């Protein structure tokens, strides 16, 4: 096995972020949220795309610590989305739970379940973990049609209520979008803190070389299980919010193809930043919207984009942009230094 090779050739893992940049990051967050608030007014006709991108952003951002830091690909996000989606339908319609409570409880449940599965699966080496999670995705697809008493079978669960915050019903595209912006921002903040924290660096060390990390006293499986649990929590929330937005949940929302496309979003955008998954979700969800005639081309184009990105931009599109800008900047400043020295 080529385990000695770094999974992430670009950027040294877990680069410490100085205190100095914290205000900058804060500013950036503020700018980002300002743009997010303005978007519904800028592109009022694309709201349903924005909401979907928001939902998939939530499902993908939680996956970044696992893929980007720990170097483990999980294809099982649809299982947790299914728990969040079908669970939300069941708890709100059959047990009359408040919608927000149902979503939170399911997210916690998904996190715990991930810890249980993680305990077994994460002992597996490299992509055996990916294969086991692919198994979870296949099982999810089968169960969602077969477990009729819970899922209403192939035709799906109809009549799920909208999300209610207090007495306010989150029904419109805009309201759904803002809820997603808030949740997405929180998830982004948590994962980016995690990336720069001790846990993040431990994860990166585990991803780079688990044996060496083990010698340093880092318990690989525990950190990975944490990352897996985080991915499960956000996926479950994404599933619940999708159900509340669609007011419907069906097996076609959690097919194996969707499981693949979630990982494709992370891979295409880049798994080591807050913005990467956003770009990935936008590209993959936006492609079919380009045009009626284009939608037949979409699977082929998405496949080729993934191959090209995996081969030539292993850090994802966003990583490539960032590295490109960084190296250009370095060249310019080196040039400036050289000129200064020559004078």
């Amino acid at each position: 096995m080529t385990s000695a090779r770094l999974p992430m050739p670009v950027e040294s893992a877990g680069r410490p972020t100085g205190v100095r940049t914290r205000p900058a990051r804060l500013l950036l967050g503020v700018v980002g949220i300002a743009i997010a608030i303005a978007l519904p007014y800028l592109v009022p006709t694309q709201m349903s795309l924005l909401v979907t991108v928001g939902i998939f952003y939530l499902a993908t951002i939680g996956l970044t610590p696992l893929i980007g830091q720990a170097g483990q690909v999980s294809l099982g996000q649809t299982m947790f989305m299914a728990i969040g989606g079908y669970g939300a339908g069941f708890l709100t319609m059959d047990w009359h739970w408040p919608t927000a409570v149902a979503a939170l409880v399911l997210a916690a449940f998904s996190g715990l379940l991930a810890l249980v599965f993680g305990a077994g699966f994460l002992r597996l080496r490299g992509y055996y973990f990916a294969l086991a999670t692919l198994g979870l995705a296949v099982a999810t697809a089968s169960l969602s049609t077969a477990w009729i008493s819970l899922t209403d079978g192939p035709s799906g669960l109809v009549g799920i209520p909208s999300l209610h915050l207090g007495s306010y019903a989150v029904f419109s595209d805009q309201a759904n979008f803002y809820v997603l912006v808030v949740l997405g921002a929180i998830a982004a903040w948590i994962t980016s803190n995690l990336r720069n924290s001790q846990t993040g660096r431990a994860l990166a060390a585990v991803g780079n070389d688990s044996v060496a990390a083990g010698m340093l006293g880092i318990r690989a499986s525990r950190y990975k299980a944490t990352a897996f649990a985080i991915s499960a929590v956000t996926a479950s929330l994404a599933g619940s919010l999708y159900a509340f937005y669609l007011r419907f949940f069906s097996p076609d929302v959690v097919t194996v193809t969707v499981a693949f496309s979630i990982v494709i979003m992370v891979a295409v955008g880049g798994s080591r930043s807050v913005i990467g998954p956003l770009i990935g979700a936008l590209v993959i969800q936006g492609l079919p919207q380009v045009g009626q005639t284009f939608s037949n081309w979409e699977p082929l184009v998405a496949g080729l984009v993934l191959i090209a990105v995996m081969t030539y931009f292993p850090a994802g599109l966003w990583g490539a942009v960032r590295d490109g800008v960084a190296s250009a900047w370095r060249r310019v400043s080196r040039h400036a230094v050289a000129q200064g020295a020559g004078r």
Partner: protein
Amino acid sequence: MSATTARRPALLARHLGLLGAAAVLALSGCAAQSAADDGAYTIGLIASQTGPGSQLGVGELRGAQLAVQAINRAGGVNGKQVRLVTADDQSSPSQAVLQVRKMLGRVDAIVGPSTSGPCKAIAALAGSAKVVDYCLSPGLKPAGYQWSASAATKDLASQLVAYWKARGITRLGLLSTTDASGADGAESAKEAVAEEPGMKLVGSATFTPDAVSVTSQLSRIAQARPQALIVWATGAGAGVAFKGLGQVGLDVPVATTDGNLTYDFIKRIKAFLPDPLLIPATRDFWAPSAYSDPKIRDLEATYHQGYVAAHGEQPDFGPGVAYDGVRLVAEALRRSQGDPVMARTELEHITDFPGVVGTYSFSGDDHRGLTEKDVAIVKATTHGFEYAGGGEG
């Protein structure tokens, strides 16, 4: 070079990324900006142009366009033109919901989607937004703001069972897919058999729509020695089942769902077309001689000739339901003076409305308007569909 300067470009790039994302969205938003409101009645059509449902959806788009052209050529509705806004749900319920959400506020009524899963998915949404939805799939129990096209699955199944009973066939087998339309068909077939004294379902089995082989299910049914077999599956699933018949040596009359009433499908399976393959169908598939009313003969002729002139082939299942759907919705909008919410009440009051699929009589409880009488059995042959019996013909 210090660490701080190295990081600045990364920050810059982050800003650029956010702005870039915003710009992409803004541009795509502009491109998709709807045409200015000119007082025309706008009907939103959701039909699957891709995915498994496209076997029906492509024809539905054509049928809807044909109806809109006919209405506009005749002077429009209340002196206003009718405009069609179209969208593709890619045969997926979640995409259908997204497309409907995009249409809300821009259309006066919705026709579509093509298949029952997406139709069920948008029911709650149409209700909340108070927009009439004339769903093109027969496979649901319509209520509220939703209507359902063509004859009920139950009526199809009853006609089929009655047809066989009249010919002395009493022991039936049933094979259905595990998807929404297969489950619906299986349930209806079981009910129809239970209601008809003397008829018996001797064996039944299910398979997943993407199954590569169903020989094990078929041999289970063959064990029970049925005299005829119902295969409630569409597209590839039905093809796999028909092919398997020869492999297990089950040589009996076969019936299938009206979802397979497409020329493309018959062309695909012509090498193993069961003999006979029976399909319960609405009157747009019967021979002209079966229509008693001259007004309906005219209507059918106009529709069939118009479609053949435009596309060089006979219309199959999709065009008919969409053609009627657009005309029904336009009639409701005419009566409600273009008020989308009132259109629901007006649509419920439409009775004895002649369509190409059947004659519609709606009521508060009946959002389908067709009955068993609108269904007859046709036989699928390599060169088209032939009237085989049943119906009020």
